[in-house]
């Protein structure tokens, strides 16, 4: 039995989980400092990187810390001095480092963090949904969501390139387990990143006050600048997209050209949903998907171009609504919103097929939970 299916591309093909793919991309990015605290299901990323540092494959300082709060504090400090930095976390780990996430964004320091997106307790649950990464929305980070191990690899490289141009930290989301622990074929592209650049660096001997107490309108101005620059980072994301894969920038449009019905989703479970869309297409239903590759900056333009029938499927909620449902509606689009797959609840092709069928038949409530 032989096939030629996976022979495209020039890089080496390897079977890698998204965790392993991210570690490989980080190795190519050659960070100076990595600091992390282990948490399921992210741990294999930093375990792999620690191995690389130990074996000499990767020339970086791996700082073992006692908490995620310290991990982010360490990379904040290292980035201030001009180091290329990386960390990874999940769920409660992200919650624990939350304060420092604001500091690094507010300090306008480039940094890359992988988030294996997982439920936050209680009740206790180690499985996948998007609750944790969505909590970063207000902190001033670029937030990307990959769909495959290949995209996790490409997006991690893109993250360094974009973050260091726009001076905004970049989080790369991968679905817990169904991506983090699932091995797929990844092409290790021969990518090379430009030298580290950033807006400022503080070196020994310099006399400067960093983040001193702000008076008057300084804080307001800083927040405004960050908001504007985060919006503008879309251009840099679009521009660098082609260098690290080619996915369509902020969004991937799947079978949308002539679609009457559009599904809006993000993350690793989009693959199953696309298979369900193909089934409906075979039946003549004009349905497609707008996959949000980025949550920040939010792809407002692409959302506004959607056909009139829109269903947003969310894996994280705010009150009774889904978060992406709320964000999409905030662009002035009328949406149906379904919350599903919380706590790693398996949502497969058949589930999506039934759900999309109900949507097309006009039988969905404004907001529903797929329980």
């Amino acid at each position: 039995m032989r096939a030629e299916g996976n022979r495209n591309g020039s890089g080496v093909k390897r079977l890698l989980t998204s965790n392993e793919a991210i570690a490989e991309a980080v190795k190519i990015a050659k960070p100076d400092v990595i600091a992390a605290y282990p948490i399921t299901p992210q741990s294999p990323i930093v375990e792999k990187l620690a191995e690389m540092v130990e074996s000499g494959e990767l020339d970086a300082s791996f700082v073992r810390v006692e908490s995620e709060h310290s991990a982010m504090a360490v990379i904040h400090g290292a980035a201030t001095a001009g180091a290329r930095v990386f960390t990874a976390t999940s769920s409660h780990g992200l919650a624990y480092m939350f304060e420092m996430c604001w500091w690094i964004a507010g300090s306008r320091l480039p940094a890359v963090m992988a988030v294996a997106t997982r439920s936050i307790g209680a009740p206790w649950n180690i499985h996948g949904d998007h609750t944790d990464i969505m909590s970063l929305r207000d902190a001033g980070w670029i937030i990307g969501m990959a769909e495959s191990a290949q995209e996790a690899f490409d997006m991690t490289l893109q993250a360094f390139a974009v973050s260091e141009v726009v001076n905004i930290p970049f989080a790369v989301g991968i679905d817990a387990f169904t991506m983090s622990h699932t091995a797929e074929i990844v092409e290790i592209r021969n990518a090379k990143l430009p030298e580290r650049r950033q807006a400022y660096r503080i070196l020994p001997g310099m006399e400067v006050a960093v983040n001193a107490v702000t008076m008057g309108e300084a804080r307001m101005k800083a927040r405004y600048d960050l908001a504007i620059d985060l919006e503008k980072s879309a251009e840099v994301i679009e521009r660098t997209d082609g260098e690290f894969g080619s996915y369509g920038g902020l969004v991937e449009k799947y079978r949308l050209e002539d679609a009457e019905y559009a599904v809006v989703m993000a993350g690793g479970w989009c693959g199953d949903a696309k298979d369900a869309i193909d089934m409906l297409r075979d039946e003549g239903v004009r349905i497609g998907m707008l996959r949000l590759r980025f949550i920040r900056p939010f792809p407002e333009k692409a959302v506004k171009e959607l056909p009139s029938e829109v269903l947003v499927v969310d894996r994280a909620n705010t009150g009774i609504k889904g978060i992406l449902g709320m964000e999409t509606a905030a662009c002035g689009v009328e949406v149906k919103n379904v919350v599903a797959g919380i706590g790693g609840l398996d949502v497969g092709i058949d589930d999506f097929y039934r759900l999309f069928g109900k949507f097309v038949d006009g039988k969905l409530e404004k907001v529903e939970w797929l329980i």
Partner: protein
Amino acid sequence: MLTEVTIYCRGGQGGVTAARVLATAAMLQGYYSQAMPQFGPERRGARVNTYLRISDRPIRRRSVIKNPDIVAVFDRKIEIDSEASVVILNSPEPVQIPSRTYYVNATEIAERHGLVNAGWAILSAPMSGAIARVLDIEISALKEAMHIELGERAERSFKAAKEAYEVIKWT
């Protein structure tokens, strides 16, 4: 064509390793492949499923396999609660089930090759040999995959895999 395989085994028997070895072997033969462990607390001896997908087109789905084409059972004591048309069994003799059954005494092969750890025979090697045979994966690809996935453990494992590949029987 997409082939979906579910491996039924116990924690520590090597189901995840087998799936990875087979996915890599399929990759080496030009296929797209995916190896997915069952997610949950890992506990030696507890029953776990591992999922393997092989296709000539990119694999997008990442949900668990609900209706596998093939079920591979590492421990005969695990109940086969599937209607898969093909079953691959670790067993010295065939069992009476409606599915087409392949069987090989993987435990005996593993033990004879010294593949035992903490009270359990490690079945990843002979069972990946057996499954590779059923999937029509070439023995050379299996060998290379074992070197990629197992490193220095590959040599001994491959001997066990090759034996299972050759002696597997079917009903």
